[in-house]
């Protein structure tokens, strides 16, 4: 028997270690559509509770939009459930080509290639476009999928301190002997919600002859005046060589991702990116839904404007109530608590009060930087946020953290 009792025991101990380290991921069962209000069964077996969702990546509130659902149904009816093939054998339909063209137009790039997810796009892109003569210089807080993609690539790896342009320039100078230099960053960083200074990064890239890669998963659809992303926000449309992004957040929330950018780089991914070559095509139902999402957000900025207003409103509510939040403009608003246990206790009490948030702590974030990450949506109305802040204040009073500085919170709870 290959899976012996000894092996089983080892895995039990390993899982227990994950629990002891506070890293055990527990699924909460949602009994409703994804929306501002959802029904959550937690803990498992409990009656589902109606709660306000402040932790989804449903930035534009399109995950359950009736027109998106109708378009998905239409895709199902006219293009089927699946293609039973990778793209390059018999898995490319007219709608895949149409979605890639529309994403290209929306992102302001030269070409686009769909992937099953942005995780897959990031896992495949570097190996496809770089080799051992090149160097990848990444911000130290890039997403885990980028790290995995870099590890799969033979090019030299280097990093620069988070958003530190001086350090990035040092690295660009240091690596002038390499054939290609690729600067790698998130557009919006997922844990802090801050934006990479793409205007400065592009300027450095031009000065030191480097290419720029941006993962805009937490930005596409709502950052920038027309929601095209971080590059629009910083006025560098058309100057980013590779953009990866997801259809699983603002752009409908189902799944799927893409590599978009210079035509030759996208073509290299079409020829060599292994997650693209060896994964099934993105299902027609998702492609059809995503096409409707692009149609909706290209026709009007109403949703991203509402999200911007919700974000401003929520940031002001938290600040006025005396919470310590990470400054910024994205719809990721971290409420800083510094202590891991405090973050978990506050999240648990907020759930009891009807607010669904998650506490994050080391090693998900840096030591002593425990927090609750709140995320806004265009699906939220003012009354959701008013109810949420009432709950936050009630729980904040219980733990006596309102109006307290970082030092005072740490003095009480440790970090």
């Amino acid at each position, binding site marked *: 028997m290959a899976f012996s009792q000894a092996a089983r025991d080892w895995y039990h101990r390993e899982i227990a270690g994950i629990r002891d380290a506070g890293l055990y991921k527990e699924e909460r069962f949602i009994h409703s559509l994804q929306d501002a209000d959802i029904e959550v069964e937690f803990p498992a077996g409990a009656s589902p509770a109606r709660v306000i969702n402040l932790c989804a990546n449903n930035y534009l509130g399109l995950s359950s939009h009736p027109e998106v659902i109708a378009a998905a149904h239409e895709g199902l009816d006219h293009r089927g459930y699946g293609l039973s093939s990778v793209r390059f054998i018999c898995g490319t339909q007219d709608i895949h080509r149409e979605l890639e063209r529309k994403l290209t137009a929306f992102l302001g790039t030269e070409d686009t290639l769909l992937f099953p997810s942005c995780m897959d796009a990031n896992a495949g892109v570097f190996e496809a476009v770089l080799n051992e003569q090149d160097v990848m210089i990444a911000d130290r807080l890039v997403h885990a999928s980028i*790290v995995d993609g870099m590890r799969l690539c033979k090019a030299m790896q280097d990093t620069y301190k988070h958003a530190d342009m001086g350090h990035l320039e040092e690295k660009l100078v240091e690596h002038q002997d390499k054939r290609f230099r690729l600067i790698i960053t998130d557009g919006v960083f997922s844990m802090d919600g801050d934006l990479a200074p793409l205007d400065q990064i592009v300027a450095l890239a031009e000065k030191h002859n480097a290419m720029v890669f941006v993962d805009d998963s937490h930005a596409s659809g709502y950052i920038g005046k027309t929601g095209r992303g971080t590059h629009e926000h910083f006025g560098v449309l058309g100057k980013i060589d590779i953009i990866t992004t997801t259809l699983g957040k603002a752009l409908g929330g189902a799944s799927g991702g893409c590599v978009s950018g210079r035509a030759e780089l996208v073509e290299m991914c079409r020829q060599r990116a292994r997650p693209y070559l060896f994964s099934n095509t993105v299902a027609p139902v998702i492609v059809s839904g995503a096409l409707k999402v692009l149609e909706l957000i290209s026709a009007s900025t109403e949703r991203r404007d509402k999200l911007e207003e919700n974000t401003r409103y929520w940031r002001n509510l938290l600040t006025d109530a005396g919470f310590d939040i990470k400054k910024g403009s994205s719809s990721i608003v971290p409420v800083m608590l510094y202590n891991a246990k405090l973050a978990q206790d506050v999240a648990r009490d907020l759930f009891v009060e009807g607010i669904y948030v998650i506490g994050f702590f080391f090693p998900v974030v840096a030591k002593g930087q425990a927090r609750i990450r709140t995320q806004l949506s265009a699906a939220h109305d003012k009354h959701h946020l008013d109810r949420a802040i009432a709950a936050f204040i009630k729980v904040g009073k219980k733990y006596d953290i309102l109006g307290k500085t970082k030092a005072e919170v740490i003095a009480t709870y440790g970090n």
Partner: protein
Amino acid sequence: MANTQFIEVPLPEGVRASHMDLELLKAMLHAIVCLHFEWSSESEKMIQELEHDGWSVHCGPTWLALCRRGQSLEQATGRTPDEAIARLYHEARFDTRYGCP
């Protein structure tokens, strides 16, 4: 053990071998032993097969740097200790946090 041969290399007066000196000495002796006793015909055969498939093969000593933290293991190779350590550093920097979706 009558046939055992020794090489004794006296260090210059006042010189103390550093950690890196000893690592280097160990690596050189290990390389000599490997070349004499562990370079099997099986290796030759595998190289020939690779070359037959169009690969150009090179095998030589290199520096290995590794670090552990709990269950995490990071390692890197380099032509020089500096290169190996620099690569290890960047590998480990990426492992500092698990990150979040």
